[in-house]
């Protein structure tokens, strides 16, 4: 028996992803690396953009006319005030007060999809099909990530298995804190134009904390007060204005 886990203060570590939209070319490397790392199966035969299991989805945000498009990679925004956690009827989503990671626990999930309705960033996938790999491909699966069943919701957990491994490594070396270089999500490692950077925003001297305060940084749907820990950056004020807006003025 213990008391509430809910805390109002910000977590000790605030793992944060910063996406530099100037750099993103929408090549799909982040999502591919994510699928490889997190044992996401190939698309089912009839899967579509809307029924696929994609943790890291790149959207094209077109400008008016022939102006340049911005490609926006959107993983789970790891909100500090997540709209999903409280809607889950059986606590299959948990906000870790030590890391700020919003964890989805697929084995606890009954597949009601209420969290998907609650999330304005559409970053969750429901497993509409039984995950299947061709026999030979199974050997290439990542042993550090468990495979989810059909009928549950899954999403980006910030490659938490890499945090686990980093912690174990620190423990083995007798250290209390992890080496930040040991905890880098797969998408960040894969991005060819280095559009993604990752780190602990609670580390005031860190690069991510600096970027978070940068006026070029903004959050998606900031008006909703969800407090995402995925930040976006653009040197173009018009892009910032366009993408930080809440709601669509015209469909």
């Amino acid at each position, binding site marked *: 028996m213990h008391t509430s886990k809910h805390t109002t203060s910000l977590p000790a570590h605030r793992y944060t992803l910063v996406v530099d939209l100037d*750099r993103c*070319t929408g090549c*799909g490397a982040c999502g591919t690396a994510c699928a490889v790392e997190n044992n996401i199966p190939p698309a089912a035969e009839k899967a579509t*953009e809307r029924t696929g299991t994609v943790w890291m989805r790149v959207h094209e945000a077109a400008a008016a006319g022939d102006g340049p498009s911005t490609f926006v990679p959107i993983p789970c925004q790891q909100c500090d005030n997540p709209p999903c956690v409280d809607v889950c009827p059986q606590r299959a989503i948990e906000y870790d007060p030590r890391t700020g990671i919003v964890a989805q626990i697929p084995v606890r999930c009954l597949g009601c999809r209420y969290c998907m309705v609650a999330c304005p960033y559409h970053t969750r996938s429901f497993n509409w099909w039984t995950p299947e790999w061709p026999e030979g*491909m199974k050997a290439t699966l990542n042993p550090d990530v468990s495979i989810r*069943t059909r009928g549950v919701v899954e999403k980006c957990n910030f490659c938490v298995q890499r945090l686990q491994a980093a912690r174990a490594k620190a423990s083995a070396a007798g250290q209390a804190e992890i080496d930040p270089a040991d905890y880098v999500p797969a998408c960040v490692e894969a991005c060819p134009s280095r559009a993604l950077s990752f780190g602990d925003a609670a580390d005031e001297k860190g690069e991510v904390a600096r970027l978070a305060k940068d006026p070029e940084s903004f959050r998606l749907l900031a008006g909703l007060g969800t407090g995402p820990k995925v930040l976006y950056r653009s040197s173009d004020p018009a892009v910032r204005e366009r993408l930080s807006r809440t709601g669509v003025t015209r469909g």
Partner: protein
Amino acid sequence: MKLELSRRDLFLAGGGAVAGIALSPVPWKLLDDLSIWTQQPPTPTPRPAGPLAFRFTSCALCPASCGLKARCFGAQPVGFAAVPGHPASDGGLCPLGLTAHHLAKHPLRANHPERVSGGKRERIDRAAATAALSAALAACGRDPKRTFAVVDGRPGRSLSRTYRALAAATGGLYVTPPAAGAALSLEALAKRFDGGALALGVDFSKARRVVSFGTPVLTDAGTPGLLARLRAESRRRPAAERIEVIQVEATRGRSAALADRYIPIAPGTEAAFALGLAHVLLDEKLADAAFLEARTTGLADFAALSARFAPALVEQKTGVGAGVVTALARDLAANRPALVLGGDPTAGPLSGETEAAIAALNLLLGAPFGALPVRSEAPRETDGDAKLAAATSLDALPDGSVGFLLLDATVAEGMVPWARLERALAADALVVSFSPFRAGLGEKATLLIPGPAPLEESIELEGPADAPFATLAFAPALLSPPKDLALPEEILREAAEAAGLSLPAPAAGARSAALLAARRGRLYDPAAASFVAVGDVASPDALGELFARGACWVDDATPEPKGRFALLKDGEAPRLLETALGAPTALPASLASLPRVAVSAAPPSLLLTKLTRETALFSAPAAAIPTAARA
């Protein structure tokens, strides 16, 4: 005494049984176990095949030759990361490379020789495959109308040497795919140089304006993500140092969508547009006069030609507003270094005239030796006294002349269209492919003799022809090939011997020796993230060790040669005029929607259906044809 059992007793006993079960472990133990059962995944996560280790290699799937950092459990790679600082890719990696470890077990993978007849695939043994090869080789020697031709996608390997020897021995042809895309436009420019053979690369870091005529410079051309990264980095520097990309293209693909300016143009009118820019540059005296004076010939003729392309005419031809043409020319002149590239490897080559116009534009902007640096080739072993055929182009294959076509596993359909090859085939020709896949050109073969899949063989990879420096990346094998796999080198030698052809001995380690002998460049050790000069590498063994660690050689800067570029070649003007004044052509069909698939010889991993099927980004680009072209 008679025992009377009533219904009441039955109820009581039933109640007792229920109570008994409730007080036994049955309900809660069952609940617990069943709940675990409902949480079992359909596919168990594999147990690690060994301890975790990181190994380095390079991706052989496309010419970019990116560095790969493989996360392996035991011998099994389970994922890749890019290698920042890698001389060939500098952290570049694309979805194809990220899934390269799936390919060895691709559902289209073939592990045994297969003969295709009448649409049916029939597995044959190695001896039968060798016999078929040797019979075909022998037949080619006998019948001069049935030539032997071999197409090699990655020249310079040890296997390439065997191909060339075989071609020489049978009087056949050794064909290498033509340069494509930006490399082709660079080649066209280099051919205008009168100071000897010249190779030019592209150094985006030295450019401030990049004009692309259809080349997907921001997405699929060259090193993944390179230009996008450089451009983004420049955006946070002073305005005068910013890189901008101008995409001139009929369709708004991803690269066009990303460009700072996208200029939709009627398809096939690139030459007119380029001459329009040249017109403004010369007319307003914005061209690089010093470069033109020192390094070019034929300025007057060219000026006379371009003078005909006033922006108003260009607008009429291309659908691009006259103001846009003028403004772009001024912008390029004001923001030199600027460079112009053309051509998309997935959409077929541009016409020679268009390449000529692009080359002239580069000269007017003074791009060569700056943003388009001189580069050398990676050292190769010499032919020695071995009889080896020289590389020829596809055009050397007359229609209906090839009796035995051998396709190396590295030939992608995007490099050599099957329709072109098919035209060259004689009746009943034998088409042999060493592709490990029943896909791409491997699917066209009448005899498929599968070789090693990607990551199954150690291979040396020359970097792309349009990189600023030559690189040679070493790609040690991460996977072991299936046990009874017939290696192309072995099977070819067996067949040649059976056909009575004598081939020179394989030159093992010749490339390393050549590299060491050249004493040029540096070697990057990805595990240590450090460079070592070739001159400091003590021995071939030390070099071999570096190779096994996935090292990458990078060339030093090449000195500027003496000579001049021809703005117009003899007799070129009328053809250029004709092309530039001609009508728009049809929109070229795009070969693939997924990045780099067209230039890769391997089919994409099934996992890439995540991109093609489950995201909206990689469907065919929407046509954005200007009004003039539609009319």
